[in-house]
């Protein structure tokens, strides 16, 4: 579509595009020069602030890799717990019985409306008061609790959208051969819905990984982002360490996000399936607030 917005450039337009490109490069260069100058003034560009990431293997073995593993650990644990819980909620919301559908719907809407950070704070306080979880692993418990409460309700919506995206004929056919409601769900709808919602689930994992950083900043969980504080305490290189850590986050998340859209593309083209897909874009809409929107 975007190519419809302008004509294929002729000789004049090509020259104009080159001029725009040149002006843009100059502006970008000026901004970069200003930023680098500012950083150089504060000695953030000095070689010894950056060299630890290349020469000193300890920065990787004691900070960056353990931090990344902690991030992945919290993310994966949260996903593993939230997935069945979310599936249960999602199916519950589709129930024929109002006494199941309404309370489950209320729970899902409630936890989707509350910021993850507040759920983490609440979880942390909950463990302090009502459990004997030791203080060293309490941050992990709190982070996972917050992530599970929020993401289970998001996954519930993804599951619901996945099941609803299937053609009506699937349910009709299952009924026609005499399957009960439970059988229809377990043998016909869910297996197909799982494939349909795979892209949405992978992109939700990106959201979870990004949210673990909250646990580092507010609850003292030792994940990747919190390592920047420790690295800069050793080498006084605040900006380099933040940049390297952000780059690691981007690498992991961009990889996951690209595989999600690759999966989506494959599923949309596939001739075997019913063509039902819960896409990446829909997932991000489902992740927020109100169902009443749209």
């Amino acid at each position, binding site marked *: 579509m975007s190519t419809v*917005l302008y004509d294929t450039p002729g000789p004049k337009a090509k020259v104009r595009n080159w001029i725009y490109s040149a002006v*843009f490069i100059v502006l970008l260069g000026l901004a970069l020069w200003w930023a680098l100058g500012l950083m150089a003034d504060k000695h953030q560009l000095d070689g010894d602030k950056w060299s630890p990431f290349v020469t000193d293997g300890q920065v990787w073995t004691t900070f960056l890799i353990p931090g990344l593993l902690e991030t992945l650990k919290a993310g994966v644990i949260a996903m593993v717990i939230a997935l069945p819980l979310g599936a249960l909620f999602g199916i519950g919301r589709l129930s024929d019985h109002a006494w199941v559908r309404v309370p489950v719907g209320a729970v899902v809407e409630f936890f989707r409306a509350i910021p993850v950070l507040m759920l983490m704070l*609440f979880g942390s306080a909950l463990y302090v008061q009502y459990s004997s979880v030791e203080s060293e692993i309490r941050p992990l418990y709190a982070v996972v609790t917050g992530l599970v409460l929020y993401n289970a309700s998001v996954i519930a919506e993804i599951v619901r959208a996945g099941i609803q995206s299937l053609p009506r004929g699937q349910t009709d056919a299952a009924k026609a051969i005499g399957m009960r409601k439970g059988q229809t769900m377990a043998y016909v709808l869910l297996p197909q819905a799982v494939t349909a919602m795979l892209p949405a689930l992978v992109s939700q994992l990106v959201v979870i990984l990004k949210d*673990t950083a909250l646990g580092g900043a*507010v609850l003292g969980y030792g994940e990747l982002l919190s390592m920047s504080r420790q690295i800069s305490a050793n080498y006084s290189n*605040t900006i380099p360490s933040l940049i390297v850590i952000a780059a690691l986050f981007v690498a992991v998340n961009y990889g996951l996000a690209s595989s999600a859209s690759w999966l989506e593309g494959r599923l949309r083209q596939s001739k075997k399936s019913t063509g039902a897909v819960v896409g990446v874009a829909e997932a991000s809409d489902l992740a927020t607030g109100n169902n009443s*929107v749209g």
Partner: protein
Amino acid sequence: MFDFLDSGQYDLLGAFWVTVQLTLYSAAGSLIWGTVLAGIRVSPVPLMRGFAAVYVNVVRNTPLTALILGCSLGLSQTLGITLGGDTFKETGFRLAVLGLTAYTGTFVCEALRSGINTVPVGQAEAARALGLSFFQVLTLIVLPQAFRAVIAPLANVLIALTKNTTVAAAIGVAEAALLMKEMIENEAQALFEVFAVFAFGFVVLTLPTGLLLGWAAKRMAVKR
């Protein structure tokens, strides 16, 4: 039961007012920034398109916490940029708005880009046939229709932004989440009540947004 509210020790409304302010300033900023980014992303100049694509993919995949901490630790404390804020409080608020705008702008850009795709091809073709330039096609024909199509997705972005303002607590902006943390520590015996109060606050903030903009989305939708 909720007697901790009467003590006058906590400025609950004040904290939520800061949350609302953070939301409004960042929403305005990211709407402008996101529109500009979307314009650049569909522009005829390949270099500018590439820049916008890289910016969106990098910033969207960075944790918001990292962006806001980067604004505070990097920009402010290391490089001495205060954005004209005189006090620590003022600077923190502005840095949080900057981080939220940079982050949310990418989501606005992506929403708008999918909105541009909903505008029928014939609209842009007709505009080009009239001899309008790219900028005219975009601002006079395509974007006005695209905006009407993306009110619902933008409402979701706004709701997410409202919730994301809590991340500003990480750099000590006195908004709702920071007050909640303080109250949980002081009023440990009333944990559930404190949580209920703040949860209610956020439901009050996000529910009308969704309903109002959902209604607006239906009303403004282009009938085709």
